[in-house]
C-alpha cells in the first residue's frame, strides 16, 4: 500500500503506551499533589520527644541484655503451668469452636439455608468478626472474672467467626451438580449434606481447623495479658516484676511452640489436600 513507505515509519506509527488509570490529566496530577501535601503535613504533625526516646532505648538495651541471657529455671513452675494452661485453653476452645461453627456455616451458606436462617447466621459471624480478641477478652474477663475460663470463651467466640465464615464460603462454592445428583436420587436433607456437601468441603474444614488451632495458641498468649489466663498472664507478671530474663525465656518458648505447631499443621494440611 502507499500509506506505509518504510518499516521504520511503520514502527513510529505503531507506538503504544498503556492508558493512564485516571483519564483527566488535571485530576491525575491534582490527586498526586494533594497526596504529597498531606504526607508532608502529617509528618510535621508527629511530635518526637527525643528525651523519652533515649530513655526508652536504654530500657530496650536492658531488655536485649536480658533476652541474650534467658532464664528458664528461675520461674520454671510458673512457666510450665502457664504453658499447660494455654495448651488446654487452645484445644478446648478450638474443639468447641468447630462444634459450633459447622452448623453456623451450614446456616450461613446461601445455597443451603433459607433466607431468615442465613441472615441470623451471617449476623452472628459478623458480630464475632467485628471485635478483636482482646476486646472480647476484656468483656469476658469483666463478666466471668480473671482466669482461663474467660480465655476459653474468648477463643471459642472468635473461632466461630473465623471458621464459619470461611467454611460457609467454601460451601457456597461447591459443585451444584453433585448436590443436584443427590437430590435427584430422592435423598433426604441430611443425606444431601452427607453425600453432596461433606465430601466437597472436608479437606477445607480440616485445614481451617488446624490453622485455627495455630492461631488460638498465639492468641492465648495475647489475651492472657488482659487477664484471661494462660502463658500471657505469666508473661505479663514477668514484665511487671522487671524480670526480663524470665520474659525472654517465655517468649523463646512461645516462638518454638508456634513454629512447631505451624510446621506440623501445614504438613497435615498438605497431606489432607
Amino acid at each position, binding site marked *: 500500500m502507499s500509506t506505509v513507505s518504510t518499516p521504520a515509519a511503520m514502527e513510529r506509527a505503531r507506538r503504544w503506551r498503556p492508558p493512564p488509570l485516571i483519564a483527566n490529566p488535571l485530576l491525575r496530577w491534582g490527586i498526586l499533589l494533594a497526596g504529597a501535601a498531606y504526607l508532608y503535613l502529617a509528618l510535621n504533625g508527629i511530635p518526637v520527644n527525643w528525651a523519652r526516646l533515649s530513655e526508652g532505648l536504654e530500657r530496650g538495651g536492658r531488655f536485649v541484655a536480658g533476652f541474650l541471657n534467658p532464664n528458664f529455671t528461675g520461674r520454671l513452675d510458673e512457666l510450665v503451668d502457664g504453658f499447660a494452661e494455654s495448651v488446654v485453653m487452645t484445644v478446648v476452645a478450638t474443639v468447641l469452636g468447630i462444634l459450633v461453627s459447622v452448623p453456623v456455616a451450614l446456616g450461613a451458606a446461601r445455597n443451603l439455608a433459607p433466607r431468615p436462617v442465613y441472615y441470623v447466621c451471617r449476623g452472628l459471624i459478623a458480630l464475632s468478626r467485628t471485635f478483636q480478641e482482646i476486646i472480647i477478652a476484656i468483656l469476658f474477663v469483666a463478666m466471668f472474672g480473671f482466669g482461663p475460663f474467660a480465655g476459653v470463651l474468648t477463643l471459642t467466640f472468635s473461632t466461630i467467626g473465623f471458621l464459619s465464615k470461611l467454611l460457609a464460603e467454601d460451601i457456597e462454592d461447591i459443585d451444584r*451438580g*453433585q448436590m443436584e445428583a443427590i*437430590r*435427584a*436420587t430422592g*435423598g433426604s436433607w441430611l443425606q444431601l449434606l*452427607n453425600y453432596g456437601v461433606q465430601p466437597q468441603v472436608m479437606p477445607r474444614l480440616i485445614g481451617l481447623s488446624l490453622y485455627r488451632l495455630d492461631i488460638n495458641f498465639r492468641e492465648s498468649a495475647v489475651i492472657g495479658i488482659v487477664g484471661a489466663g494462660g502463658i500471657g498472664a505469666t508473661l505479663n507478671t514477668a514484665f511487671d516484676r522487671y524480670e526480663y530474663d524470665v520474659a525472654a525465656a517465655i517468649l523463646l518458648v512461645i516462638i518454638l511452640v508456634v513454629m512447631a505447631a505451624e510446621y506440623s499443621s501445614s504438613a497435615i494440611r498438605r497431606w489432607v489436600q
Partner: protein
Amino acid sequence: MLVIDGLAKQYPTGDRALKGVSLTVPKGQIMALIGPSGAGKSTLIRCVNRLVEPTAGRVSLDGQDLTRLSRRGLRRARRRMGMIFQEFALIERLTVMENVLSGRLGYVGFWRSWLRRFPAADVAAAFSLLERVGLAGFEDKRADALSGGQRQRVGIARALLQNPSLLLVDEPTASLDPKTSRQIMRLLRELCRERGLAAIINIHDVALAQMFAERIVGLKLGEIVYDGPADGLTADVLTTIYGEEDWSQTIRPADEDGDEDAPAIPPHEPAVPIDRERLAGLT
C-alpha cells in the same frame, strides 16, 4: 408412562424457558430431545423430577401427579426417575461403590447411609450393575481417578440402582469424545431395552440422536416444533428447529444404525466429527 401436559416455566429473571409443552412418553420408549441452546431442554427434564419447579402445567408418572406432591411424596417419586448428567455429577472424593450406592439414598435411612451400611441386596445389585456397565473391579477407586467415559458409566449405574421406570438424561455425551459418546449411547439404549425403561435424552448431537433414539422431539424457544420418528428429520425440520444451515451432511441414511451396532468400528469414523463441529458452531 410419563404424561406432560401444558408444562410452563418462567424463571424469576422473566425468561420463559417453557411455554406450555405437552408430551406423552410411553413405557420403554427412548425419546431424544433436540434443540438449540436455551430452547428449554434442561429445564424440561428438570421440571419432571422437580429439581426445577414448574410454573404451570401437570406432569404425571404412571398415573401419579408429580406436580402436587409433598416433600416426602416427591422424594419417593424421585426414586422412580433416574437422572444422568452432562458433567457426570459424581461425588468426586467418594469411591465408585459409594457413588453407585448413592442411587439407593431414597430407600435407606440416614444412619445406614451415613455409616455406609447399605442392605446386602443393594450392594449385590451395585456389584452386578458395575459388571454390566463394564467397570468390574473399579468399586474402590475414587471417582475423580476415572476417565470421562468411565465416569458416565458410574453415573448410569447410579441411576439404574434406583430401580427407576424412567431415565432423565441430560446431555450424556457432551463431555465425551465421539467414540465414547457412541459407546455410552449404545449402552443406554441396551439397558433401556433390557429393563423396559422409558428415557428422555437431551442431546446436542443430531446424528447421535437419530442413531439411538426411536422418537425425536425438537424444542425451540420453549415450544415443541417437531415430534416424530428419527428418520422424519429432514433438512426442512432441522431448519425449523435450529435455523438456516446446510443440513445435508447431518442427515444420515437409516441403515447406518445397523452398522454402528457391529462390534468392529473403524478408528476413523465417517463424517461425524464434522457434524459435531457444525453443531458446536451453532451453539
